[in-house]
């Protein structure tokens, strides 16, 4: 699934990384706890989070996440946006809550970290 398709499914706006919409995303994970993202995330992950401070971008960079989707209409501060631009991490923001945003992506075929897909 491309970042463009994710943007359309989640009715999201692009906060940063307008030129990265062709990026291919193969799995995703959602958490507001960066401790858990560091413990359970994997390189290449699309991170969904409601944590909008710079630590979300630093954590994404540390684990080689491909992009971040902020849920609940959150947007990162300027420090986070600047770091994301430097590191080439696209940032999106959706008004959907975490559960709905993850559910929409999962039911449209984007698996989680474990690779589990929805039952047909």
């Amino acid at each position: 699934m491309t970042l463009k398709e994710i943007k359309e499914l989640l009715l999201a706006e692009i906060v940063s990384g307008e030129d990265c919409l062709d990026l291919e995303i193969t799995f995703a994970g959602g958490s507001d706890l960066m401790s858990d993202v560091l413990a359970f995330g994997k390189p290449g992950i699309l991170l969904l989070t409601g944590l909008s401070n710079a630590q979300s971008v630093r954590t994404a960079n540390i684990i080689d996440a491909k992009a971040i989707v902020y849920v609940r209409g959150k947007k990162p501060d300027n420090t986070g946006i600047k770091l994301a631009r430097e590191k080439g991490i696209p940032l999106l923001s959706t008004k959907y809550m975490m559960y709905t945003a993850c559910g929409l992506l999962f039911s449209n075929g984007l698996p989680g970290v474990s690779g589990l897909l929805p039952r047909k």
Partner: protein
Amino acid sequence: MMMSDKNELSHHFEINGGDFSNAGRISTSIKEILQEIGIDSSIIVRAAIASYEAEMNVVMYAQRGVFTLNITPEKLLLNLEDEGPGIENIDLAMKEGFSTATDEMREMGFGAGMGLPNIKKNADKFDISSIPGKGTSLKITICLDRTERK
């Protein structure tokens, strides 16, 4: 940066306790250094995660800390010495979910009690020692030679 006659690269970083706005910058620099010298990306992620968790622990709990990265042809050595409250019970601190974090730390997305266990998980060798009231010392080894890895 220093280079000894033993073909070893060494970098030192100082961490200020309570400096939440800069928390994670040193780990980001460590990651960049490892990328520049062409270390395998799977090893870089493990070193970056271990560094980040260790750095956050100093920011959250200690007054200050010194982080040293030593790179040899065989391994990465990450040593962290902090001045702070230390850890009373290391066995308890190593348990997933145990945490003494404050609300401020949790608002930063940390303090879930995963830090030390996650450092151990990403290291090939992990040593921790602490003197309550003085500080904590971490020695993290990540092997570059595949046969030495756990």
